[in-house]
């Protein structure tokens, strides 16, 4: 299962943090700091997987943003790697050509999309269309 998802830029600013396990505040800060340090200096030619404590970070870099997921050591790495990409495609579709600023100024929307995509640390919906349609429904209610 996914333990947490982080979106961080190269400077280490967190753009989104979602935890599916209960962590203390101080622990969350530590995790965010460590994960950033772990992924930021890796060569683009390296694997997209890094071991992190007793888990694994599956990460992918899009422009200046790192999308990192912490998963179990026995989980299927490539499936989660593509899960990240699907999420990015959904964001891209929703914001039409997403950039970091969209995520900054609309962070609440990003949380909303994420809740339609992943729940309880597991994939909930893999159809881009289903998620975009659902977001449309929700926007109408606001």
């Amino acid at each position, binding site marked *: 299962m996914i333990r947490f998802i982080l979106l961080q830029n190269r400077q280490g600013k967190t753009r989104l*943090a979602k935890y599916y396990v209960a962590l203390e505040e101080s622990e969350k800060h530590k995790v965010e700091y460590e994960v950033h340090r772990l992924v930021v200096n890796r060569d683009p030619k390296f694997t997209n997987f890094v071991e992190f404590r007793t888990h694994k970070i599956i990460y992918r870099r899009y422009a200046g943003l790192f999308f990192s997921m912490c998963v179990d050591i026995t989980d299927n790495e490539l499936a989660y790697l593509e899960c990240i990409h699907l999420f990015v495609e959904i964001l891209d579709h929703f914001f039409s050509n997403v950039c970091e600023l969209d995520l900054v100024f609309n962070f609440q929307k990003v949380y909303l999309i994420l809740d339609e995509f992943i729940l309880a640390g597991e994939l909930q919906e893999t159809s881009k269309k289903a998620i975009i349609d659902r977001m449309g429904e929700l926007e109408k209610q606001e």
Partner: protein
Amino acid sequence: MALSGMRGLSVFISDVRNCQNKEQERLRVDKELGNIRTRFKNEKGLTPYEKKKYVWKMLYIYMLGYDVDFGHMEAVSLISAPKYPEKQVGYIVTSCLLNENHDFLRLVINTVRNDIIGRNETFQCLALTMVGNIGGREFAESLAPDVQKLLISSSCRPLVRKKAALCLLRLYRKNPDVVNVDGWSDRMTQLLDERDLGVLTSVMSLLVALVSNNHDAYWSCLPKCVKILERLARNQDVPQEYTYYGIPSPWLQVKTMRVLQYFPTIEDPNTRRSLFEVLQRILMGTDVVKNVNKNNASHAVLFEALALVMHLDAEKEMMSQCVALLGKFIAVREPNIRYLGLENMTRMLMVTDVQDIIKRHQAQIITSLKDPDISIRRRALDLLYSMCDVSNAKDIVEELLQYLSTADFVMREELALKAAILAEKFAPDLSWYVDVILQLIDKAGDFVSDDIWYRVVQFVTNNEDLQPYAAIKAREYLDKPALHETMVKVSAYLLGEYSHLLARRPGCSPREIFTILHEKLPTVSTSTVAILLSTYAKILMHTQPPDPELQHQIWGIFNKYESYIDVEIQQRAVEYFALSRKGAALADILAEMPKFPERQSALLRRAEDAEIDTAEQSAIKLRAQQQTSNALVLTDQRPPDNGSVPVGQLALVKMPSMSHSTDASLADQGLAQENGTLSKVDPQAAPPSADLLGDLLGPLAIEGPPIAASSEQNLVSGLDTVPSASDALALAPVVEQSNSVQPIGNIAERFHALCLKDSGVLYEDPYIQVGIKAEWRAHHGRLVLFLGNKNTSPLLSVKALILPPAHLKIELSLVPETIPPRAQVQCPLEVVNLCPSRDIAVLDFSYKFGTTMVNAKLRLPAVITKFLQPMSVSAEEFFRQWRSLAGPPLKLQEVVRGVKPLSLPEMANLFNSLRLMVTPGLDPNPNNLVASTTFHSESTQAMVCLMRVETDPSDRTQLRMTIASVDPTLTFELKEFIKEQLVSMPTAPTASTVPAPGTPQVQPSVPSATPTDPGAMLAGLL
């Protein structure tokens, strides 16, 4: 740039972004927090819109990494707002800010419940999402039944149901004891018919958790999962929106294959066949393509398929296909694929016997150990570690040592530990082991934990042949200019004990040894100084005739340290000084360290303890546990040459239990079988000394055995009067172990397991492991007993006697009287079956370790069913025979109660393991099992036996069994034996109403079963 629709929020975000530095940002944030705090204080004037805006701002500030220690109440209270926009903010922000243990959550449980059971679908979704993300125990207690209802409700949209599935998953994972899933197997089976792939994806995640916890309850889901996988893999009826770069939902495929890995096996031949067809398709049909995403997605599916094939123990051909694929992967440039190739090779080693094929890739794997990417290096290290055995230990360990000097710091400790473990486990000879450990200390002293050097001292102490060699090596290292302190410790210790064995060599006179050691003293820490003092005392003792000059020099040092600030050193100095003036008595007092009591290596134990934390237990690990028995296998077959203890046999190699299909000869497999896992010691039967590290440290911390803690005070004064050497020696730390040897694991369980399979462990205690491997052909049996000495000292007076029952002729070849350290001997055993009987042969086995005599009487699994050969019959043939064997005593029937509850596939599995071939579909009633076999003995030709078992689906603890054969004794004995196998003797002895198995008279069973009994109606038919 899209705007958030909330001006105040956007302005604030811009402000923060425009800050030039961290300090400005903090000021801006603090100002905003102050503002929010004041606004919240005076809540009356706050419009819902404003409240919402401030709560968003709080989340944003929180995300920036600032502590937000107020306003939680306001966020939580928004959950109770009547309108969607506020409620939504409340739910989202709460699930980000608070975790499951927060008190405030309790306040909204009722609101959340009302949202879940209410009619507003949007509210239902919000509530399910929050509970799914942060729900704790109290939520599980009050909401689980409602969530379960939503999941199976036909009136809910897929949207709600997929959230309900995952919400339930969360509650179940967190509190399996609270969420009641009894009877959920039927529901899950129905849910798998779901057409909406979003719901199916979520349901599949739930199923993984349920099945991993208790696969028995979910057998009915298995064929459906295979169907789903078939449908996806063939891309039948998959909506376009659920294909990802042309691949039908790779995630659902992966999940489905994950579920299948939690079932121990797949019995139904049709299901198995279709699954293998799909897997074959995936294995063969996955090509490398240009598009990265498509490539990743298809390989995600491929790697999961590989894992499933490994799990299912496919035929050799398919396995070698997998290894070939992995071999290809570990050589590609694409780093992700190479990484996964290495990772899966390691997994493969854990479950199957592919050691030899994988060894061919050793060079390639070593290349990956030098990859610039640490992730890949780690995988390569793990793989090398797992694939290591006696044959390649030297190459691999030397490769690790070489790499150690250039490896990055984060990996050095692990590397050092792994090299040390491999050297210990697989050393072709002990001197090589000493070489490796000393090199380790030399190259990476900082990363060599104390356990490692304690262990080498233990080995040297317990093996006399090794002592001069170790002393020479230690002496050689002392000549090096810069020495790690650990090296000073270990050399000082070894030279103190054994340098007198080198006395005639150049540079090894007591004075020279002392001088070179003493040079190190000014630079070392207190703990090392203590060891050095002990060494000096020992050197003095070994210097015969005494060298007055050396004596004075050392006494001078003792004198100097008598007033040292550290009390331990002070005490040693005082005592050694007094002792060393005792003249001849000194030799007795400062005698050589006694042998260490045997104990499990702390290192090996550490390797076993490495637990990982995952949501579900890994399927591979589960499987490794199911393969309960791992027998020790001989690695060095040299016979011990006339009495002297060969130093060459350190290695322990593990062998996976053979699958029933493997019929290859025993001899060639002995060497090769290896799965790389460490011996699993039953946790409840710990080795005699519980605190291994503690007592490892004990004797070493004192260093000189005579100075035992108990009499430290009066030892010095007492010695002035009567130097009672024998008393002092009695204090030596030899653990008293009279008759306290406890077997590891349950002997009865081991026997029962071996009745069902042909290899495994028959007996194990802290000193010895007795493995067994058998081959049965008609009425002949060939067993091999593997007696493995787990110690570093020999086992003596080994005796093995067979007490055969009347119906078996058993010949045991000679058992050697001594088993050398860490060696294993094989004792073949020939068995001939004369007539049917369920009596059991007993092996009376004894040995001596030190002064402890151990005796065990073990039942040998040469049981009646081993002389059966499964036979398949056509329906016509079966019925003809069944009718011809009418009634007692050729056909016996009995109602058996107190049966271990087994599902039908499990029961079929059990019968198949007992060599009774179950023919599915032969009996029209699906609750019945029909099996056929032939029995072989020397006196008769093969005799056909038929069996029918009628089970009661409403009560799995009882069944009716009918057995038929042409021989009344065979019928009876077989019936009684199978009954014993079915009844749960160890767990519920009281519930069982089975007649004593020894009852001699044949019981014609009562055919007057109630007419509602489904079996009874069919009985007439048959």
